[in-house]
């Protein structure tokens, strides 16, 4: 439900990048969405579309890559994919873990058309 807040941050982040580059058009935005981020890809896309009807990202396409969550076993240090609960270390069967990734929502890169300096 907080996808709109995330998309607002996305636009601010990209606009800061655009300020320091000569960009005429943004074609694609690549976003990584962690499995434990509580952000729904469909809702992110919907918010992105609604918020880029005008402005500097008008017409840009949002490409979402889903990222799995990874836990680290606190007993033996093994890192393993978070699939279903309870989490059990595949190596030593310990149930003591910390989550090391999967909560992130981050913008990787953008594809854009650069302006010629004398345009």
């Amino acid at each position, binding site marked *: 439900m907080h996808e709109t807040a*995330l998309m607002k941050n996305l636009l601010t982040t990209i606009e800061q990048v655009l300020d320091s580059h000569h960009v005429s058009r943004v074609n694609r935005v690549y976003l990584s969405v962690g499995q434990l981020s509580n952000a729904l890809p469909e809702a992110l896309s919907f918010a992105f579309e609604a918020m880029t009807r005008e402005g500097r990202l008008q017409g840009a396409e949002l490409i979402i890559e889903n990222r799995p969550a990874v836990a680290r076993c606190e007993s033996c240090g093994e890192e393993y994919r978070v699939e279903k609960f309870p989490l059990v270390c595949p190596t030593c069967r310990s149930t003591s873990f910390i989550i090391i990734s999967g909560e992130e929502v981050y913008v990787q890169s953008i594809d854009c058309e650069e302006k010629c300096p004398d345009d």
Partner: protein
Amino acid sequence: MTRLQINQDLKALNNQIAVENREKFAAHNVYVINIMGSPGAGKTTFLENILPKLSLELRVAVIEGDLATQNDALRIEKTGVQALQINTAGGCHLDAKMIKNQLSKLDLDVLDLLIIENVGNLVCPAAWDLGEDQRMVILSVAEGEDKPAKYPIAFLKADTAVITKTDLLPFIDTDVNVMKKYIAEINPKVQVFTTALKDGEYEADQVVQYIREAVRRKQCR
């Protein structure tokens, strides 16, 4: 066409402000609890009942998150504890900046404990660090025993869970031990407490004791 690398977490700004909040709380020796739970779980009722007990020994203030009303802050103020209300105007969670904006209204030097009651919602608040020391999830037995399995992320990120309204157990299908098992399966480190209303008395002594000790531990560090 050019590809520009950005590599920026969209919660980076929030996380940075949360770090600043946490440093500020540490500098003033204030212990902070972020309370999360569904609407109707009993978060405000829990606070109304534990605050008089906590304020016997600790100096406490509360920040209330709500979409639209002042109701909860007014309820808290009746216990004699200072309460600040944040209205998110439809926003589904509190973020670190909203907390930072409230801090100028609080005298942190005369506080031991700050309790933040997040917006009633078991999904979004879990994703936003506020700078707290403890994340507490409140859920009532009336919500059904499988609530933790349906909302795993809130429990995955919790330090404590308080199961409220256990006096209703004789009248409903929920098995509180199954509920506890679900919580332990998601996050074995969560400390689980229960509360009940019995003969007009709200029973929450264990969690009150736990909070007191947690505050003292931080202050002795």
